[in-house]
């Protein structure tokens, strides 16, 4: 299948990409990993007149640690994040990176592209919302850094302005006795999840001192279920408290029925995923190694 013909622009720098975007206006799209955009173009759901290819911009696919924070270049591929020893320090990031789609897609897809697309079923926004994470952007008005929770505004909508693009994602390392887990269920490896749950928590003995939960694929943007967090915050993490959090999460989410399942099925699923993610996060916060990744048939 061929996409509609387009004009191809190869940016040498992110600044140049921003300039080209601004000059060409609405008809231009950025090409990062292309694992969502190219399929959409082949199906003619997206018909950009111009593509601005970021893949030849040097030095924006890094994963590095800098004064206690993790920095991901916008073009860092899911695969390189999954394999990076720096990112492994924050296990929830590895859970996400190593489980997105399949090997081939992870080799191309990028963290910046995933965030900027803001697909309601995308994994990164859900995971990053549980962390002190920021998105650095550059545009005609210069640079700005915004929290992930503000960056994603609606389904397929971010606060990026004309000519503006993502340059970096910054994750400030969680403190001591903190850890997290991300669990997504998908029908098969290459597809988007049906539902997912991300948890980041801090323990003080057996008590949950702080917690952030985000649920994916069950709303237009990742859902932060405040009541589910309240069911655990400041309390001993018992089976009963986890059940209450899951029940609150099922109420807080707003899933749409589609080919992946009915709304009720997704509510049940997201609660079950949350329970498992909380238990894994607790074990990790206590120093245990727990392997976790997307589940599929």
């Amino acid at each position, binding site marked *: 299948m061929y996409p509609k*013909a387009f004009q191809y622009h*190869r940016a040498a720098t992110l600044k140049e990409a921003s300039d080209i975007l601004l000059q060409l206006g609405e008809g231009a799209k950025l090409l990062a990993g292309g694992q969502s955009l*190219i399929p959409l173009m082949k199906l003619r759901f997206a018909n950009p007149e111009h593509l601005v*290819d970021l893949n030849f911009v040097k030095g924006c696919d890094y994963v590095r640690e800098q004064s206690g924070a993790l920095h991901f270049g916008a073009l860092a591929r899911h695969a390189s994040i999954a394999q990076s020893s720096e990112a492994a320090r924050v296990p929830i990031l590895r859970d996400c990176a190593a489980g997105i789609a399949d090997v081939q897609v992870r080799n*191309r897809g990028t963290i910046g592209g995933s965030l900027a697309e803001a697909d309601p079923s995308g994994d990164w926004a859900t995971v990053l919302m549980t962390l002190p994470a920021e998105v650095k952007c550059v545009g005609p008005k210069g640079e700005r850094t915004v929290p992930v929770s503000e960056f994603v505004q609606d389904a397929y909508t971010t606060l990026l302005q004309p000519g503006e693009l993502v340059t970096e994602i910054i994750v400030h390392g969680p403190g001591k006795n903190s850890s997290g887990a991300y669990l997504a269920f998908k029908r098969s490896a290459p597809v988007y999840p049906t539902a997912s749950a991300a948890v980041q928590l801090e323990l003080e003995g057996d008590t949950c001192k702080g917690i952030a939960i985000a649920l994916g694929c069950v709303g237009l943007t990742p859902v932060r279920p405040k009541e589910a967090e309240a069911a655990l915050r400041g309390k001993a993490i018992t089976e009963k408290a986890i059940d209450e959090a899951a029940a609150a999460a099922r109420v807080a989410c707003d899933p749409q029925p589609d080919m992946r399942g009915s709304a009720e099925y997704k509510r049940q699923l997201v609660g079950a995923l949350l329970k498992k993610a909380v238990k894994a996060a607790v074990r990790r916060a206590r120093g245990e190694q727990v392997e976790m990744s997307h589940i599929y048939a």
Partner: protein
Amino acid sequence: MLEAGTQNQAAAPTRVVITVKVNRKAYTRAVEARMLLVEFLREELELTGTHIGCDTTYCGACTVLVDSAAVKSCTMFAVQADGAEVTTVEGLEGTDGALHPIQKAFSECHGLQCGYCTPGLMLSSLALLTKNKNPNEAEIRKALAGNTCRCTGYQNVFRSVEAAAEAMRSAAHGD
């Protein structure tokens, strides 16, 4: 040559001259920007061993290696492979025409039936075995999760990869 991103942006070309090294041989062609890598391989270079299965980034039949990384060549434009090294199924056999250990193992272990998905499966296997000489079953399953096979039920595919890994380890030790 390519004038993208230079002074005259409105007149950026829809055709672009690219040079891609495929199976150790360099090819220079002027291609339409919208040409997919898989079409470039099949139509421009007549390397028809790379198959188009679903054409929707699902099945992995079109898997090739780009700079050693497995990718779905139906989900990458040929212009993006400019300057890259691509390996397709045609590049597996040795210069003397001998089958690659992965090809031999798929044949001997009945890792294929109709064979349509096999080129993609073998390239995914090569990407795995280049990085991991002795993968366990879970690692093999994860590495091949992006390749769909409707005939075999996968069991013989996994056996093929194990056999290929063993053969490649033995060859590396000069046994």
